[in-house]
């Protein structure tokens, strides 16, 4: 009897504490209908997330589900955003245990904190911990770190799915309108008057040639490699002209010798106009000016070369190609002419002395020796000769060239 009373008292205490804990936060950050977490774990996690929201204004919602109620996981993530928070800036992460799929939905993200790399880091922190509690704590810790260093958009806006397939972020890229200028000097290395002149020149180029040619400087690439940073900056800030988002964007990170980094990304018609040889030529031409920190000359050289390519008529590179082909053909022709001046040649055969009808084949055997099969992956129809062609985190195709010096 004493034991029963004690048990009732314990149960009553737990219920009371749950009620109290529920009243400690107003929003629900962790959604766990399958009871993978204990109440105390749930309490701690919700408190942690509430703290992050208070500090950053971002609601970070985590859902562990086994049934998405007939919706797609992406829809579920979006629905969760509207159901569980009023915050304008939010990240909703959904782990569907049945389908073994992760999805996320980002709302607002006015600081551009949640790049693909950050989302990846958050997912990895969750994945690598054996317990749900530890995993979600890691997820929030990674998010908290990212919120400390806001930057421009280099992350997807809107719902995207993260699958377990390595390196494949998928899905529909939602195009945004460009609000940033064509020159974004985040590293603060371009004098204001020069920046204004560069912007004006970029605008003129865009208008005249229907191709956006942009310049971005950055003190760091927020943990991304230069290629991903350039591609994401281009995609998620709405760069590119017209329906195909045609354009080219250079990102430059200043630094000491060996730390300077430059990358040129192209998209749409930009990839065919500014092909690999041209991009590499531009980087070569810019290098010395960048080392000398003469950014006016460096970026004007970039725009000069871009304009050369865009001008009506055949690009200058073809002048060299045609001249080279002409020179080779010319040498072949004169070589053929001079070869006629040399008529003394040793005869290494005796075919002309073969006795007519004398050849007799007395033995002929063709014996199977061995066989083998060579397998080569098929080139996809959209593959390009330009080996720098790749798919960015948005799923769009970019080409690019870069250098570190």
């Amino acid at each position, binding site marked *: 009897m004493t034991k029963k009373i004690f048990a009732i008292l314990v149960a009553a205490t737990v219920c009371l504490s749950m009620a109290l804990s529920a009243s400690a936060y107003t929003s629900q950050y962790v959604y766990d209908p399958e009871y993978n977490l204990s109440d105390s774990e749930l309490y701690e996690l919700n408190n942690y997330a509430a703290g992050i929201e208070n500090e950053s204004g971002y609601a970070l919602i985590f859902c562990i589900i086994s049934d998405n109620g007939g919706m797609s996981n992406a829809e579920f993530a979006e629905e969760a955003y509207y159901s569980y928070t009023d915050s304008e800036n939010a990240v909703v992460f959904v782990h569907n245990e049945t389908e073994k799929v992760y999805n996320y939905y980002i709302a607002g993200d006015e600081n551009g904190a949640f790049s693909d790399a950050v989302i990846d880091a958050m997912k990895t922190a969750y994945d690598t911990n054996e317990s749900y509690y530890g995993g979600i704590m890691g997820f929030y810790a990674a998010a908290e770190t990212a919120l400390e260093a806001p930057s421009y958009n280099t992350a997807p806006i809107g719902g995207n799915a993260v699958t377990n397939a390595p390196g494949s972020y998928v899905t529909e890229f939602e195009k945004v309108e460009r609000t940033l200028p064509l020159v974004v000097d985040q590293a603060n290395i371009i004098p204001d008057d020069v920046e204004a002149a560069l912007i004006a020149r970029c605008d003129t180029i865009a208008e005249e040639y229907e191709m956006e040619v942009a310049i971005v400087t950055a003190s760091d690439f927020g943990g991304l490699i230069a290629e991903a940073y350039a591609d994401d900056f281009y995609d998620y800030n709405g760069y590119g002209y017209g329906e195909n988002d045609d354009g080219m964007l250079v990102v430059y990170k200043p630094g000491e010798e060996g730390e300077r980094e430059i990358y040129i990304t192209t998209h749409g018609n930009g990839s065919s106009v500014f092909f690999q040889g041209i991009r590499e030529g531009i980087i070569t031409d810019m290098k010395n000016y960048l080392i000398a920190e003469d950014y006016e000359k460096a970026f004007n050289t970039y725009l000069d070369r871009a304009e050369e390519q865009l001008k009506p008529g055949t690009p200058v590179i073809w002048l060299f190609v045609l001249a080279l082909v*002409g020179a080779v053909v010319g040498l072949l022709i004169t070589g053929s002419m001079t070869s006629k001046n040399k008529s003394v040649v040793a005869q290494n055969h*005796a075919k002309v002395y*073969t006795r007519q009808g*004398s050849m007799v084949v007395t033995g*002929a055997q063709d014996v199977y020796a061995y066989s083998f099969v*060579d397998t080569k992956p098929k080139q996809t129809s959209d593959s390009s000769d330009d080996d720098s062609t790749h798919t960015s985190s948005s799923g769009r195709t970019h080409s690019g060239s870069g250098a570190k010096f």
Partner: protein
Amino acid sequence: MSAITEQKCPHCGGAVEFNVGAQKLKCPYCDAEFDIAAMQQAEDFAANTVEQINWNSQGSQWDAGETDGMNVYACKSCGGEIVADATTGATSCPYCGNQVVMQGQFSGALKPDLVIPFKLDKKAAKEALKKHFRGKKFVPKAFLAENKLDEVKGVYVPHWLFSCDAVVNATYQAEKYKHWSDSKNEYTETTAYNVYRSGSIGFDNVPVDGSTKMPDDLMESIEPFNLNEAVPFNTAYLAGYLADKYDVDVNQSMGRANERIQASALDAFEDTVEGYNAVTPMQAAMQVANGSYKYALYPVWILNVKWKGQNHTFAMNGQTGKFVGNIPTEEKKAKLIGGLGGAAVGALIYIIINIISSL
């Protein structure tokens, strides 16, 4: 069996293993499969590639008194020895143009079996030289204007003529390729065969220059001579011409004949390996049957052209009129004009394209 299992893969060089299930040899590195009998056959053939060439000698000696009236002249400069009958005489060396002195009456050496008499005269040779220069590009103008035809000599050049049946045993690796693909991959199946050919092919009168002073490549360049017009040697044919004594004997000449006969014999048998995408000769052995040789004099017009102190030798087949000789050439000028001219044309095309596209 153990000896076979230690063999190397003819495709990649890896050690092959016997696959019990397939009853075949299989390479664990490239997955190629081999037929054991084929592998053994290839081994046996490789061990039996002895090359043997035997030639039966012919040739005759001079009759008593036949060389009377034939004098030998020696060049002090190049050491060449030439023969001329007493009425023709000789004053200069046909090879280098320097003076020759009479050494005495001709004696020794084999008597030629055959001689092809000159059919074309000196005038034809001079005309042929003019024609040879005509239309040639990048020849120094000074050469064309200043060259001096120093001497035109009709010379009977000694040749050894080799005839034989070449008995050939050859093996080739032949490959057939089959291509196909599915949605992911492209496949190429290579099926290799060991191909064996044996048989014989005859060659008649393959000539080898028997004079060291006469460049071999110059003589080979004016081939062929028509031996149907050859006649038994008679000193009467030497009247008005010079003759060279052979100083490369038949044994020294066999090597060159062998090279030429072997190359053509193997080519002829390789041509019988048909129906494959690629054929690679692996091993070959050639033996000579019914080998014989003759000693013949071939009619050659030698034309020495002097320019800037240098001697340029041209030769004409005295029977067919085939004319050869390297003409001085301005190689650098040719490359400069070809390269720059071609580049200029390329640039012009670029400009035209730009003009058209801007219209």
